């Protein structure tokens, strides 16, 4: 979603909140005499997870040719599947017809000015869907063999090997190199996963029509993903750029140690076995308890994720993950200290919750980068994640499709989430400084 739209959502939701604030006829529901009652309808109406800003991270150019290639290839795949399908097996015929119609919807119009990697990914998935239909159709017709699938797998593997063979993480700056090559690592990882062959296919593919279609789609996705990775890299890298692979790998490794040191010094003194009862007062049903659970969830086990990513050789991803983890560790430390100090009890009123929500949005806004390709863009993610989760809670989105009025528990969870978002946002500047320092940015 474009940034302007999120801003508009935020503005409209805040305006809506203000508008209904003065309406005395709205229901006020409480669970017991001991529990504060809130205007749940008003709070639920205000929530909008899509209002949480999501800055554009990728600073490179997205060539038009990439999405156009997906469009042309997808159309070509679909053109090989007749609209008036006929198979002896009635279920095969009906499902293929339905799949074809659905896949064709995405190809009604050619891509027009695809400028984000997110939209490019949507075109890639549309191409996969077209390949799934074509693969299933070919299998049903007896025109797809195991050898065909093996050939396609070999091609993706070859393309991926070629892409990885000359990868030195070039960039305008080391920070921009992290941002760009993290995106390329994601694509390369996705292509590698496409080779795994999730399902064992029967030898007779006419007996495994739709499973065969899925395998073909995975491999088509792998092929398209490597092509996008190569195309994005070619569009970004110029001859004069420095290679940063060693700087980024070194920073990733050092940041893993920084996480351990930070955990020891300012991180929360909690582990997998910790519980709200450790605070020696009754926190059940309070935002403090929810804040504790969020803090525990986010820090327990996360340092290992960075190590695993380094072991895979995805150094830019490891740097970004280390940045997220450091924000979470510092935020969790602050949160647990505050809980120990007796903070984060029940809000006294609906107005107080509204204020806490606005404070969280303001804190997250302060972390937003002024330009893409900066450390702030990826380090600030945990704050945005916490805010989005809190908005989902306040909107009562979990489990309920129709009735989205939050209950008391949803509101308490949301308030805990807003508090965490503020702590995470507060942690961002120090973590940005440290990540830049370990990367040698500006040197």
């Amino acid at each position, binding site marked *: 979603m474009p940034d302007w739209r999120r801003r508009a959502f935020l503005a409209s939701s805040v305006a809506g909140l203000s508008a209904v604030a003065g309406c005395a006829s709205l229901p006020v529901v409480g669970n017991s005499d001991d529990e504060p009652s809130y205007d749940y309808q008003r709070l639920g109406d205000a929530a909008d997870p899509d209002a949480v800003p999501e800055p554009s991270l990728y600073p490179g150019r997205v060539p038009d040719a990439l999405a156009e290639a997906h469009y042309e290839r997808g159309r070509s795949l679909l053109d090989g599947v007749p609209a008036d399908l006929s198979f*002896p097996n*009635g279920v*095969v015929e009906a499902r293929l017809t339905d799949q074809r119609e659905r896949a064709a919807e995405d190809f009604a119009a050619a891509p027009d000015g695809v400028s984000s990697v997110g939209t490019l990914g949507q075109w890639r998935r549309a191409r996969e869907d077209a390949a799934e239909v074509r693969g299933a159709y070919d299998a049903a017709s007896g025109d797809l063999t195991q050898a065909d699938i093996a050939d396609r797998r070999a091609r993706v593997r070859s393309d991926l090997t070629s892409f990885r063979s000359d990868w030195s993480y070039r960039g305008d700056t080391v920070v921009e190199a992290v941002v760009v090559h993290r995106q390329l690592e994601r694509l390369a990882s996705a292509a590698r996963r496409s080779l795994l062959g999730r399902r064992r296919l029967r030898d007779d593919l006419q007996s495994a029509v739709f499973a065969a279609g899925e395998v073909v789609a995975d491999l088509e996705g792998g092929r398209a993903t490597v092509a996008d990775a190569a195309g994005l890299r070619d569009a970004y890298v110029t001859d004069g750029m420095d290679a940063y692979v060693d700087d980024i790998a070194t920073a990733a490794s050092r940041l893993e140690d920084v996480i351990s040191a930070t955990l020891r010094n300012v991180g929360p003194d909690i582990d997998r076995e910790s519980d709200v009862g450790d605070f020696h007062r009754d926190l059940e049903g309070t935002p403090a308890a929810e804040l504790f659970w969020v803090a525990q969830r986010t820090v327990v086990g996360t340092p290992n994720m960075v190590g695993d990513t380094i072991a895979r050789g995805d150094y830019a991803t490891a740097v970004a993950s280390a940045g997220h983890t450091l924000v979470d560790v510092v935020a969790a430390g602050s949160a647990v200290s505050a809980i120990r100090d007796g903070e984060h009890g029940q809000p006294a009123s609906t107005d107080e919750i509204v204020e806490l929500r606005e404070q969280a949005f303001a804190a997250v806004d302060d972390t937003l980068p002024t330009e893409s390709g900066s450390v702030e863009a990826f380090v600030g993610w945990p704050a945005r994640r916490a805010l989005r989760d809190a908005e989902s809670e306040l909107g009562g989105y979990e489990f309920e499709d129709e009735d989205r009025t939050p209950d008391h528990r949803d509101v308490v969870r949301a308030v805990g989430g807003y508090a965490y978002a503020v702590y995470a946002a507060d942690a961002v500047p120090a973590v940005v400084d440290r990540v830049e320092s370990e990367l040698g940015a500006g040197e």
Partner: protein
Amino acid sequence: MPDWSRRRALQAVGTVTAVALAGCTGGGDTADPPTRRHGDPVTDYDLLQVRDPDATQLFWRGDRETADGRVGGGYEYVDSESTLDGLSFASDSDAAADLSAFAFATDFDERSVLLLARQVAECYEAEFRGVWRDDDGLETAFCQQLRPADESCSREGEDAFGVALRVPFADAEFTSFGSHWSGDCGPKPVGIDEGRNAGGGGGRDA
């Protein structure tokens, strides 16, 4: 353009459709496979699976159940010849005759027979996946998979599917029976003995 993967959505819909097409006619069936089975796997069994595209009921106890339009399904646990004598098998069905012959060939001093029946969508094969025993009864598991694209079948058609399972229990006094049906066969688990298949299968040729 939607930003979700249509393939994932279609997979989910496909699974649900497969289960729905199979029909559910009572007798303790549940549509979803359990995440973990309870009880001990039974490996010393004899199995017969039959299909009949024309039959609505393969066996029944008491009056034939046709008045309310329901098709035959459910289970019968048979631990003696007298119990078996109280059952009726469809006289116009070879599949029902096979089930009857299998049941009557049982030595009830040492073994008993679980008879199961339900409707299965014509375009799907049914596959037996195992039987488990707990203190109260028996639990069976089946899965379905789409028949080959070049085999003729109607999307709306249904066949009567019957199973006779001879298990090594006599005087067990079981009171609980259940069947789990999965819309996707997936890989077979390791460690489950296939038992002895007395012939037939989930395919339409049985």
